[in-house]
């Protein structure tokens, strides 16, 4: 392996983020290896979502830096993060509700197009061939996540669990190197959780996509991830393999509370 192909895909170095003086994240460093599933856990308000927002440029960290795929930077716009290969889903589903499932998935592939809008509007040049290729790729993702029956349904009309899956499909359609999943299983029942975990593991194995996810269900997290990072009050309190983390007294204290 060359140095740019090192085993670390993403690393955060002493990242701090505050909102008008309120520290959301303070001095956090951790690294995510290529091809692993890394879980970010912690009580509500621990700074997990904020950290994801820093990674893909929605928020700007006041201190520290983020290094992704060999490129170190302090600030990044979301669009640049997408171009570099970071895709994500949101805690509160952020689908395009007025569009069909297929259109939502195709939107995820917007960076994969080369033809200009004029070519597409006049249907000349590369547009037609490219439409076929994009559709084929989108259909692969739709098939992978088994949402074919709803291909032409407006996503606003789908039930919650399916919307979560469509959002995952849209992120996956971008063929990302890093997939950030913000509570992909929130609000699901046990069988839906099992199904969604299955999809995440399949994505990780078949496409080799590195996954960073936020999840509250400890059982799911322990079964799914190779690596767990625990946050509490914006600080990192543990980082390691699931088994190690589970035995960490600080983690137990954060989750179950301690006698004071």
């Amino acid at each position: 392996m060359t140095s740019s192909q090192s085993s670390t895909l993403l690393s955060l170095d002493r990242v701090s983020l505050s909102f008008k003086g309120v520290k959301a994240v303070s001095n956090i460093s951790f690294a995510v290896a290529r091809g692993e599933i890394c879980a970010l856990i912690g009580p509500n308000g621990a700074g997990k979502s904020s950290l994801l927002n820093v990674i893909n440029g929605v928020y700007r960290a006041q201190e520290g830096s983020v290094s992704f795929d060999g490129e170190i930077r302090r600030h990044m716009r979301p669009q640049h993060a997408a171009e570099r290969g970071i895709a994500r889903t949101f805690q509160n589903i952020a689908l395009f509700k007025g569009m069909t499932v297929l259109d939502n998935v195709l939107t995820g592939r917007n960076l994969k197009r080369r033809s200009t809008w004029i070519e597409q509007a006049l249907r000349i040049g590369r547009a037609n061939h490219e439409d076929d290729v994009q559709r084929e790729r989108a259909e692969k993702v739709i098939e992978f996540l088994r949402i074919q029956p709803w291909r032409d349904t407006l996503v606003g009309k789908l039930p919650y669990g399916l919307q979560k899956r469509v959002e995952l499909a849209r992120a996956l359609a971008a063929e990302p190197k890093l997939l950030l999943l913000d509570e992909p299983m929130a609000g699901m029942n046990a069988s839906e959780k099992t199904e969604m975990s299955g999809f995440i593991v399949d994505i990780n194995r078949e496409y080799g996509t590195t996954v960073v996810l936020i999840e509250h269900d400890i059982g799911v997290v322990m079964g799914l991830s190779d690596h767990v990072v625990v946050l509490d009050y914006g600080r990192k309190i543990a980082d390691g393999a699931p088994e190690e983390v589970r035995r960490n007294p600080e983690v137990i204290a954060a989750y179950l509370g301690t006698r004071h």
Partner: protein
Amino acid sequence: MFYTEAGQFSTRYAADRRVFRLRQDRFALALLLVFAAGVVPLIGNDYWFNAILIPFLVLSLAGLGLNLLTGYAGQLSLGSAAFMAAGAFAAYNFQLRIEGLPLLISFGLGGLVAALLSVVFGLPSLRIKGFYLIVSTLAAQFLIPWVLVKYGWFSNHNASGVISAPPLQVIGADLSTPVGRYLLTLGVVVALTWLAKNIVRSELGRNWMAVRDMDTAAAVIGISLPKAKLLAFALSGFYLGIAGSLWAFAYLGTVEPHGFDLSRSFQVLFIIIIGGLGSLLGNFLGAAFIVLFPLFLSNLVGLLPPGLIDAGQLENVQKMIFGALIIAFLIREPEGLARIWQKFRARARRWPLRY
């Protein structure tokens, strides 16, 4: 029964991508176009062309222009009439100052000038959203007509700021008769509608809807928000500019900047709200409603016994009925006439079965 998709399979993505996937739809559209271009010119009279068909088509095009911006890209605007004025006056000046410039080219150039202005007034959309954005486009609505009145150069120093239509000639054919002006308008509107349909179904159209529905998510998947928004303003301005040229030259013949005032902008906005935001067909349905309904009402009032309503109040009564109907209608079907048509089609597909 007759409107069924049974047996019509799309075996290639290209076939699935067609604008009208069903054979019946394609047939109906072809029939409509042949009727509009071939039969209507033979059977229509001057009143129909001048008072109904031409304004209906031009207003549909204007609605389409605004719908690209508001219905698809989600950016509110109250400056439609200003960009229509810009297009009309620019086309007039291109015709006036460039010897032998073909009519359609000057329409196109007028559209480009309107597009440019629209982009300039759309720049605040990069920072502000929703109702606040209306203020920027409202500025265009007041500024552009004012500039056109203030500086005589734009109307070739006409004392009252009025511009008159250049000779309407396309490739040697004289189109200044009512039929000719109807065909000119029809041709331009059909071509631009086809282009708009392609755009809203392309990547750009999807990007616009993504920005409209959830702009943060759109940015996160790599859509450039400034590019999507400004292209929406540009294309909307282009369509409105050409609609303005048609309004001035094919419909009215002479026009002054005050013909493109705020009430015209509201009229275009009503067209897309009544017709349906984010629908191309909706523009035509909305424009038909706006053009035909007042005529229908005045004919209806004519049937009432004379003396029941004072003649001076007649117009006000009409406006009140019209306004009340719009409100009642929007409560019943907030998604507009296009939605009603969609429901009807869905039902026609199953007819005579209920499910």
